[in-house]
Every structure is written in C-alpha cells, then in structure tokens.
C-alpha cells in the first residue's frame, strides 16, 4: 500500500510499536498502515459515522467523536504519539486541541495545508478571491477549514503554547522539499511537537 506523500511524512514520524491516537483518522487508512508496517497500538477518532464504520471494519479501534470535545476523555500520557493529520484547520479551538494532544501523548505529529503558499497569496493578492488549490480544494462557503494558518503562524503558536518543534517536513507538488522559504513554497507542512 502506498500512502499519500503527506500521510507518508506523518507515518515516518511514528516510531514502531508506539501507542498511537489518530485524531480525525478518516476511514483509518493511515492507522491500518501503521498497524501493519510498524505494529503500533492503533486508536482513532473521527467525526463521521461512515468513516468510523469503515475503520472498524478494517479491525481498528476507532470511536466516533469530535476532537474539540472528546479529547478531554483521555487520561494524560495515554499515548506515545498523537496524530492530527490535515485536521487542525477544521478545529473550533486549534490551540486548545494542540495543548490536549501534548497532554494525552508525549509527542504529536501535526500536518496542515500552508496558507502562506505563494499560490494562496497570489489568489488573494492578484485574483482577489479565496484560494482553491490542490491542498485547499473546496470553495470558501463549503470548506470545513475554519482556522487556516501559515507555516510561520504555526511556529509562533507552538512557541506561545510552550511546545517544542522537534522536526519539520515540507511538501510541494506532492513531494518532499527542503525547508528553504517553506512559508512561501511549501503546500503542506508536517511538524513533530513535544513538550518543552
């Protein structure tokens, strides 16, 4: 099974045998991959009943729930790694969720579309329209993304929350790229966070 480039970057950050909670796990594709290739203890949360049904049908332990509301149920240090893949920008309270991730898990891997990418900037600056791009494919009135941020915004918020950035991976055109001018040139970012 081949993972999408951003999911592969997330998966690379997860150590073998880890206790993993994937928040917004969708139909469980990433969790199943991690279970099968890295023997992780895989748990997930997703808001959609259909997604949960698909994930459970894959044999995963997944609960229907909402990261904004339901992370509080988990005890501190319940997991080695929390995954928030392409989900942060849909949270009502992203900063609270980031704090919760690092309460219930020692580390968190967070991926999101970079709103600072030049194509996004161009769409707004030159076109005067909300961007519709490969990583932000849905129009403004239909998108679930309510809290978009740039790579630099994320670094700043992590700092304000007292979180340490252990690792950062960037993607453009579906492949990994270097960190140079990431805020302008990366379409997606994958950060590994730890407590300070």
């Amino acid at each position: 099974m081949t993972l999408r480039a951003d999911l592969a970057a997330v998966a690379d950050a997860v150590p073998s045998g880890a206790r993993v909670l994937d928040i917004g796990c969708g139909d469980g594709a990433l969790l199943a991959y991690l279970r099968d290739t890295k023997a992780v203890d895989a748990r997930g949360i997703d808001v959609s009943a259909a997604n949960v049904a698909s994930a459970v049908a894959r044999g995963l332990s997944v609960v229907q729930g909402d990261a904004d509301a339901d992370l509080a149920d988990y005890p501190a240090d319940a997991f080695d790694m929390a995954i928030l893949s392409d989900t942060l920008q849909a949270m009502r309270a992203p900063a609270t969720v980031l704090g919760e991730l690092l309460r219930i898990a020692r580390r968190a891997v967070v991926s999101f579309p970079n709103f600072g990418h030049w194509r996004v900037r161009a769409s707004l600056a030159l076109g005067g329209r909300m961007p519709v791009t490969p990583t932000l494919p849905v129009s403004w009135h239909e998108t679930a993304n309510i809290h978009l941020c740039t790579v630099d915004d994320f670094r700043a918020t992590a700092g304000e929350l007292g979180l340490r950035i252990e690792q950062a991976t960037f993607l453009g055109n579906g492949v990994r790229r270097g960190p140079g001018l990431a805020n302008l040139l990366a379409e997606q970012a994958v950060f590994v966070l730890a407590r300070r």
Partner: protein
Amino acid sequence: MATAPSLAHDTRFGLDRGVTLPGPFALESGQTLAALDIGYETYGALNADASNAVLVCHALTGDQHVASIHPRTGKPGWWSRLVGDGKPVDPARHFIVCANVLGGCSGSSGPGSIDPATGDRYAMAFPVITIRDMVRAQAALLDHLGVGVLQAIVGGSMGGMLALDWAVALPDRVRSVVGVATAARHSAQNIAFHEVGRQAIMADPAWAAGAYAADAPPSAGLAVARMAAHITYLSEEGLTAKFGRRLQNRAALGFGFDAEFQVESYLRHQGLAFVERFDANSYLYITRALDYFDLAAPHDGVLAKAFAGTKTRFAIISFTSDWLYPTAESKRVVRALNAAGAAVSFVELESPHGHDAFLLDAPEMNRVIDGFLRAGT
C-alpha cells in the same frame, strides 16, 4: 469443565436445548437456588482449541431463539438479521450460544419454575435476581458446554448490559464485547417506565399477588405494561411516519373509546400478542434486575474503575433516535473505557426507528460488527 464437543450427536448442542445444572446456585441477594434450569440453543461447532465461541445475549423480552423459527410464534429468530449463514455472527465460523436469561420464561429458572421446597410454582417466592446473576448463570452454562473463553459476547439493549457486565465480572473469559443500543446503568427515566409496567401488572386483579394459575394470567395488566414499554422502543419520528393521526377502519372520529387511531390499534395488538408469549411475573423480575443495574455503583460511581486493566476489546453502537438508551449513555461507557485504556470502538448510526433499530435491517451495524469480530480472530 466438560470436554469440547466432538460428536455430532452430543445432545448438549443444537436448537431448543435445556439443561438442569446442580446447585446450590448463589445469588447476589444472598439467596440461593437449589438448581439452575437453562433453556438455550447452539449453532455451529466449537473448534479444536475452543476459541470461536460467541455468546449472544437477548433483550428484556427476548429468548434463546436468536436465529431459529420460534416454536410458539412461528416467527424468524429475533436477531436473524445479524446471526446466521453469511451474517456477521455465522455458524460456519462461530460456535454460537444463546440462552434464556435467569428469571425468564422460556426454559430457564424463573418465577414460573417449580419451587422444590413446596412443589408449587415459585411466583413471588422466587428470589429477586440481578444482571450479574444472569451472567453467572450463563457462565455456568458455558462450563457445561466446554467453553472457557468467549471470542465475543454480542448483545443489544439488556443483552448489551449483560455483555458489559461479563467484561467486568469475568474479564478473563471474554476477548471482545459488542454492546448495541445499551447502557451501563438504568436511568431514572428507565426505572420510571418499568415501574409503570410493573404497577399495571400488579393492578390487574388476576395477578393475585403473583399466584395466578397458568391458564389465568394477568393478561390485561401485562398487555398495558407492554404497550407503555413499546412506546419507548419507538421514536416520535417513527410513530408519526407510520401512523400519524390516521384513523383505524373509519372515516371520522367516533366520539367513543374504541381504538379509533391506528396507533392505538397497533399498541393494543402489541399488548395482546405479547401476553401470548410472556409471563407477567418474569416481566416483574427481569425489569427489576434491569433497574438494579449500575456498573459504576460498586466503584464510587466511577465507571472507568469497573473496567480498570481490562484486556477485552469493545465495540459500542448507538442509534440517533434511541431515547430509551440514548447515545449519551453509550458515550459514557466509551469515555470510561477510554479512561481505562481499553481498545474501544464506538459509532452512532442514523436511524429513525428508535431503540428497536438494533433489531431491524441495519447494514451499517452489520458492517461494523462483522469487521470488529473478524479483527478479533
């Protein structure tokens, strides 16, 4: 423990079985039963290492005929949509056991059984039983059948409570639990509706303090109890869609008290059909057991403590329109299991059919249960 089945003609296995297990059988109340009768059915065969046993637990008024034609009503098994050839619980892969609960009226010890001390039916001399007592009776049956550890317990409604209680009482004997449309306790509203049912039975003069003759039961009281309970199994949305304010066999209001509305006629039919197959005293005892049920009570009200250290996997399923055991109660169980670090799956499925949704055609439920059970093998 008895040996695993190897012979096809072993009379312990098959449809419509019954066994009397020697007592004394100790109950949570401190009382004992001299012996334990259990009516049950099995489907499929236990494999060589006895690892494929699935216990299916029935609801308040269910019985052991989970996937076979009911001998009295002639209707298909009550969960034949989930259990049977090619279904998620499949006799081709699983050794399936379904037993009438302790206190029931379909072959298991209950208030209709003969009290060896008197030679008469127990009636209200039957000890009050609990969900835990029902679980222990099922465990005694499994000992008799040669089943040590269950691959899974699957139950809906009260059956789900039995499944949850199994995981708490006998955690080493159950690898996975499927609890559908269920809860870890009876709420005030649940108890209230049950009390209406019990009082309807007791208000029927034919009840005679429980000492009615078998051919003269308190049918009117039991029918009213069923009518009230049946409303809690449906939803306002479902009732409106099915009946609305439509009249039954008439064009205009009759200015009387016949069953003028279709919904009245339907409920009366439900009540009448129920008394044909269920015992009024059993209804009292089983509803009482349900009302006593609260898994958190022995743990200072902290449900997570009941599941502490559990190795059992759980799948919890609720339905959007179920107001008898609503999603909030399932989520309470899921929260506790998460806090206990248990491997738990949970999904709330869309249905307009209220609590009864778990017994009806529910492809998503089947898909979830199938995947969950296959992952556990």
